[in-house]
């Protein structure tokens, strides 16, 4: 590769240089940075819709009995809330946004391996989301199956299940193609000298994620197609009245959807692994352990799916096998937590907003993960399965984990994305509201879950009222936090950001903020003795 130094600075990727200007320039761009940003904007829209749907549910649950709308509406609400949040927000999530924006720069590449395929994935994402959302407005009304589409209910209900299922199918393909792109990018386009074990840890986590995307998503794809076939053609794979097996549906669904939870969390863990050493100004502790634990989570996580089905009447043999495997997958997560905390030891810690969110992540993720353990044990799962306890578990880990990591990431890379800073004080306040509101919203759900409050309940017995009302107020605090954060980030321009505001060591901090179209003026190279996270 020839390297000549240009004398005038390259224009940043935010400036339109191609044949189109304005919006069209964005929509046709194959620049990984722009695609990442487009994912982010789209996701925020879906996310805000999902949040409002969630708050609507809390409103109805404020008191037992019917308050504002009927059970059919409620059933539709949690279904589309789950579909939006899972399939359009957290599954593409950090990988699509920051994987696209930062990963190629972090490994010293100009772009991903297949830039046009990347843009195509984005449009598949939009298409899939549009199809899934259209289910609300067409046919016999919003689907009411829950995001899990359990057969045979999903085959018998008259509501518009096919559109939702088909939307999820298309979204799955978008996810597969992103994963494919990332695998090839990381194999073929690392900077010279950067071996796999010198790659930063966020790319590492994306690598593990990409393999899950590629190997697990097709299974749910084919399963959803089978649901469509059943509804249209009277083929009975899962409908017992035609000889099918509903438990088989659950197996197929969770073969994907359990690994999918690691699609969500691995990039989140990766981001945290970048943020902590940066703000502690200290080499990450146990680099190899963290890298390998990502792969271990991906691999073992593939074989624990049936822990969602302990009560479905599986064989006792299968139940204990899956319980045991579930516990094994907790160990690599524990390793990461220990390494993060030890990285802070004897560091020089600067508590800026990204770091604050990272601390919040660790705390909430621990609660989410540890309650996952009581779900993984056979006897305790039987009691709390399909109760509010599960709802609390996954909100803690999905939104306390992935959500807070997302916020951490956006506060971390914001200066690089926009070349601007934001107001730290307001960021800290938004963190305070988010953190307090979050715990007030979901912690009571653990308790009423153990008391026996089932999930997906439009109405409930009077003994759960107090917990439900605490949750409602928590929801309000959260909403304030969200508004504070979004206005802080997007309402007005902050001061100009330096190239390296946090003192980070990965490649994205060596280039201008915002980065030029080609990322690097001089393609980076990693020397024999260079290590990632070389803080001196």
């Amino acid at each position: 590769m020839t390297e000549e130094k240009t004398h005038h600075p390259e224009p940043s990727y935010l400036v339109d240089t191609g044949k189109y200007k304005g919006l069209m320039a964005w929509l046709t761009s194959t620049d990984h940075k722009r695609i990442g940003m487009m994912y982010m904007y789209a996701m925020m829209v879906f996310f805000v819709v999902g949040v409002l749907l969630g708050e609507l549910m809390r409103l109805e649950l404020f008191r037992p009995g019917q308050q504002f709308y009927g059970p059919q509406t409620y059933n539709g609400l949690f279904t589309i809330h789950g579909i939006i949040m899972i399939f359009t927000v957290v599954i593409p999530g950090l990988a699509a946004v920051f994987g696209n924006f930062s990963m190629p720069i972090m490994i010293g590449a100009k772009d991903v391996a297949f830039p046009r395929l990347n843009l195509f994935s984005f449009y598949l994402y939009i298409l899939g989301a549009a199809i899934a959302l259209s289910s609300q407005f067409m046919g016999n009304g919003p689907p009411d199956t829950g995001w899990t589409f359990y057969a045979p209910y999903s085959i018998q209900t008259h509501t518009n299940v096919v559109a939702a299922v088909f939307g999820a199918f298309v979204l799955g393909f978008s996810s597969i193609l992103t994963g494919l792109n990332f695998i090839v990018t990381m194999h073929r386009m690392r900077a010279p000298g950067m071996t796999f074990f010198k790659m930063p840890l966020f790319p590492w986590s994306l690598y593990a994620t990409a393999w899950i995307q590629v190997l697990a998503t097709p299974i749910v794809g084919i399963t959803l197609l089978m649901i469509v076939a059943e509804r249209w053609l009277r083929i009975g794979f899962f409908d017992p009245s035609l000889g099918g097996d509903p438990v088989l549906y659950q197996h197929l669904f969770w073969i994907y959807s359990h690994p999918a939870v690691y699609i969500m969390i691995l990039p989140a863990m990766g981001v945290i692994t970048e943020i902590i050493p940066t703000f502690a100004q200290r080499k990450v502790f146990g680099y190899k352990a963290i890298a390998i634990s990502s792969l271990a989570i991906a691999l073992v996580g593939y074989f624990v799916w049936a822990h969602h089905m302990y009560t479905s009447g599986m064989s006792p043999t299968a139940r204990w096998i899956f319980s045991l495997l579930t516990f094994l997958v907790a160990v690599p997560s524990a390793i990461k937590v220990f390494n993060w905390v030890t990285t802070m030891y004897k560091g020089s810690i600067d508590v800026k907003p990204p770091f604050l969110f990272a601390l919040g992540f660790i705390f909430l993720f621990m609660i989410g993960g540890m309650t996952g353990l009581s779900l993984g044990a056979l006897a305790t799962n039987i009691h709390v399965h399909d109760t509010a306890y599960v709802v609390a578990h996954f909100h803690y880990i999905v939104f306390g984990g992935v959500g807070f990591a997302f916020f951490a990431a956006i506060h971390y890379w914001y200066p690089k994305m926009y070349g601007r800073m934001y107001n730290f004080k307001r960021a800290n306040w938004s963190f305070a509201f988010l953190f307090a509101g979050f715990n007030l919203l979901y912690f009571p759900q653990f308790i009423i879950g153990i008391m026996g409050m089932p999930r997906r309940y439009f109405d409930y017995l009077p003994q759960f009222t107090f917990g439900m009302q605490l949750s409602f107020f928590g929801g309000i605090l959260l909403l304030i936090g969200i508004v504070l954060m979004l206005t802080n980030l997007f309402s007005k321009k902050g001061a100009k950001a330096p190239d390296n505001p946090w003192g980070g060591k990965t490649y994205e901090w060596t280039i201008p903020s915002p980065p030029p179209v080609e990322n690097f003026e001089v393609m980076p190279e990693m020397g024999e003795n260079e290590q990632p996270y070389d803080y001196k």
Partner: protein
Amino acid sequence: MQTETVHITPYRTYAWVLIALLSFTFLTITVTWIDLSAITVFVALTIASVKAYIVLTYFMHLKFESSLFRVFVIMVLAIYVLVIAFTLSDYLFR
């Protein structure tokens, strides 16, 4: 970045491979005529796997690609086999 050493497979190899595949096809057909009852499926799948192995190594050039490709293929197949095995741990022990 390593560059590829171009490997040209002679036509003759492909011809032999084709003949092998065709023979295995006839083998499965004859084998399933003889009723082996319980192990029919097993035999048929074994022969199919041998055929698949041949297709992967020669037609799909795995033999001549970098070992990375082979590792991946083995990994994917292993994961798939494990998925089946774990699913059957439910169905076979009901």
